């Protein structure tokens, strides 16, 4: 009998452990193993030294350090790694999380506040994690009259669409999840999904404020999609391709923003509107319509929508970098990989290495990623900045801005591009 747990009995504890173990074995053998089998059937495992890498083979090889790196490298060449980790979801989610933290700290400094401070010792760096835990642990409340299947599905579809958008952005030469020839068309298609999801979630909540917010979002996104698409035509005219990787590669000498500043400005403003950032956050205007189309979302459903919003923000910033700021192109600053590690380093009597499988990433890829991230962070900074300076604008001002001024400027941009093309200054492939 201890003071901490007065009702503790060893026999009952062991019995409960055995109980749990029984259920675990049962669940794993009945549900877990079939699922793993199904997943393994669909995932294409890499082939190393002529042998298909099965999970069993991987575990035996991991015991040998010289064979670990090739396994890791082979895994990084798979589609799964690209979708889930590096140019895909994981990388984007990391940048999105950093964006939220930087936004809160920067806005706080602008407004003479401290911002997140206590959570995580260093300047509240774990605040986002705390917020996430809070959202996960909160109860999800669904309005009684909501159209439940659509209402449940809307946040998930929103995140999925944002992730699909992320998949189209090339980060470094050869490092893109979906390297499709009609990449820019794919971007337009993905952007076209967002208003549909918004109006579906707003309408299915069966509440007045989300409905008004959804209608506003629909107005805003549809009317700003046209200047968005038109502003990108200039780049397409000059490069002669819709493939985003080729567009980025065509800017090895200079970025397109030098020749098409009007298009870049129009794209930046429409980007703010598509992202519902201040001053265009009418669909979430809290003093008019509570939280707009997000009003009825609670708990992790709201968290998912926020995640999707920030993924979308990263994807738009990345698109701006790829189209106008030269993508991954930049001076080579990453040092070359030390050759000794490939042949083996002699340290007195010992010879360390050689390490087969090194280098994990080549120099171009690291340099390209570095420049892409630097430029993207800069663009994100400029997207966040208006929040501290501007009030919200009104729906009629927004629509007149989109339909008259921005479309006109987008046409001006197209004429500039056509002029440059026909004057022979620039052409498909860029001025080399």
């Amino acid at each position: 009998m201890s003071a901490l747990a007065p009702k503790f009995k060893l026999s009952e504890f062991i019995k409960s452990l055995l109980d749990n173990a029984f259920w675990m074995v049962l669940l794993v053998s009945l549900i877990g193993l079939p699922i793993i089998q199904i997943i393994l059937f669909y995932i294409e495992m890499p082939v190393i030294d002529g042998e298909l890498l099965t999970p069993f083979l991987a575990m035996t090889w991991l015991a040998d350090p010289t064979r670990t790196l090739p396994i890791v490298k082979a895994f990084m060449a798979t589609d799964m790694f690209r979708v889930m980790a590096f140019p895909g979801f994981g990388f984007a989610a990391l940048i999105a999380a950093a964006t939220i933290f930087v936004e809160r700290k920067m806005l706080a400094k602008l407004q003479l506040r401290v911002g997140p401070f206590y959570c995580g010792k260093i300047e509240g760096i774990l605040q986002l994690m705390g917020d996430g835990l809070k959202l996960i642990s909160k109860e999800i409340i669904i309005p009684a009259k909501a159209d439940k299947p659509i209402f449940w599905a809307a946040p998930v579809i929103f995140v999925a669409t944002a992730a699909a958008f992320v998949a189209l952005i090339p980060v470094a030469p050869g490092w893109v999840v979906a390297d499709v020839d009609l990449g820019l068309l794919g971007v337009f298609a993905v952007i076209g999904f967002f208003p549909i999801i918004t109006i579906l979630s707003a309408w299915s909540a069966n509440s007045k404020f989300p409905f008004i917010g959804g209608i506003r979002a629909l107005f805003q996104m549809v009317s700003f999609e046209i200047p968005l698409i038109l502003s990108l035509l200039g780049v397409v005219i000059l490069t002669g391709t819709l493939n985003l990787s080729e567009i980025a590669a065509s800017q090895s000498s200079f970025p397109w923003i030098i020749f098409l500043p009007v298009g870049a400005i129009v794209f930046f403003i429409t980007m703010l509107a598509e992202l519902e950032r201040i001053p265009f956050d009418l669909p979430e205007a809290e003093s008019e319509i509570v939280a707009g189309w997000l009003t009825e979302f609670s708990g992790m459903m709201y968290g998912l929508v926020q995640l999707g919003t920030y993924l979308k923000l990263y994807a738009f910033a990345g698109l701006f970098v790829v189209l106008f700021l030269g993508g991954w192109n930049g001076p080579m600053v990453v040092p070359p990989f030390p050759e000794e590690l490939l042949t083996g380093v002699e340290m007195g009597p010992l010879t360390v290495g050689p390490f087969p499988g090194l280098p994990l990433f080549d120099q171009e890829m690291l340099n390209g990623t570095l420049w892409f991230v630097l430029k993207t962070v800069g663009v994100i900074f400029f997207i966040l900045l208006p929040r501290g300076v501007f009030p919200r604008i009104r729906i009629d001002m927004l629509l007149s801005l989109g339909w008259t001024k921005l479309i006109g400027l987008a046409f001006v941009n197209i004429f500039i591009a056509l002029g440059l093309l026909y004057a022979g200054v620039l052409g498909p492939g860029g001025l080399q």
Partner: protein
Amino acid sequence: MTMTDIMPPGLALKKVDERIMTLNVGPQHPGSGHMRIVVQIDGDYIVACDPDPGYVHRGEEKMAEYRNYITNVPHLERPVIHDSCNVLYPYVLGAEEILGIEVPERAKYVRVICSELNRCIYTMYWLAIYGIFLGHSTMFMWPAGDRELLIDLMEKVSGARVTHAHFIPGGVRNDLPANFEDVCLRQVNYFEKRIKEYAAVFYDNPILISRTQDTGVLSRENAIRYGTTGSVLRASGVDYDLRVKAPYDVYDELDVHTNVMKEGDSYARSKVPWLDMMESCNIIRQALQKMPKSGSVRTKLKPNPKTKGPATVYKRVESGRGSLGCYIVSDGKTEPYRVKMSVPSFRNLLAMPNLLIGEKLGNMPSVYWSLNYWPVEADR
């Protein structure tokens, strides 16, 4: 009388056009304050607006009938705790006249200083909410932070940060602390420098100007007809300020400038209180200069003062929201027979339905809050 006539607004079973949607803005809405606004919209246009105050009614006037003239002081300031000196001012003036109490000269100056400091504190709070109603989060944080300067000053004077209960019949509760003049002058100068910086981020902001100009226009004639007061009246071009037109205490010895704008729109109504804050800083500096450096600040009272016989008095002052009156009826006992507060908030609210009809829904928060309306004061 039909059923629909006696139902509360918003619950009325009126048959409306199918295009029209009824929105209950409040009381649990981030853009309503402690009240409800029933808005009917056709598309994005407001076709009917029915403000429904009364959610924070606390019976302050009835409570005043059960307490004597001194113990009424702490609870009569509760309607607007951010403007507590000004809310108490007319009651104190009336009680002094009805009880026949003389006030020392220094106490009058201290009252003017506290009153102007409180006007700034209230206006900064109001401005912060006006900023966040327009989606401008910096304009929420800056005034909310800068009003701490003046709150600290008032804490030095009275000991409390918001509900000061500093004005009492016969003067003020305590004398100013040592070295107050220097600290006050320094803080007020810095405060004035800070609020001038708001022009760059808020009042000269092109989006703000295009959003609030020519919205909710209240003409000069209508402003007078609806009985609006204070900054709303001055923004419509009427030069009316009780500190100039009917000076009380020592305002007649000070040089008070009135800020008047002619537009009468939401932008003008939001700008006049900001200009008034700078004028308040001027008044505080003058009062600090002219104030007698020493002397009593309180006339000694009997424990339960009462009037000689039946008497009535009506006193009014210019508060942060406009002309605030207090009508006291005495029947010769130690408690007042009736205390009636005539508050500016309720009169400014009366203009709201007419201003909002025909406006867009997006203009509702800016027009509503530009009326310089404090829901708790309207309910008392």
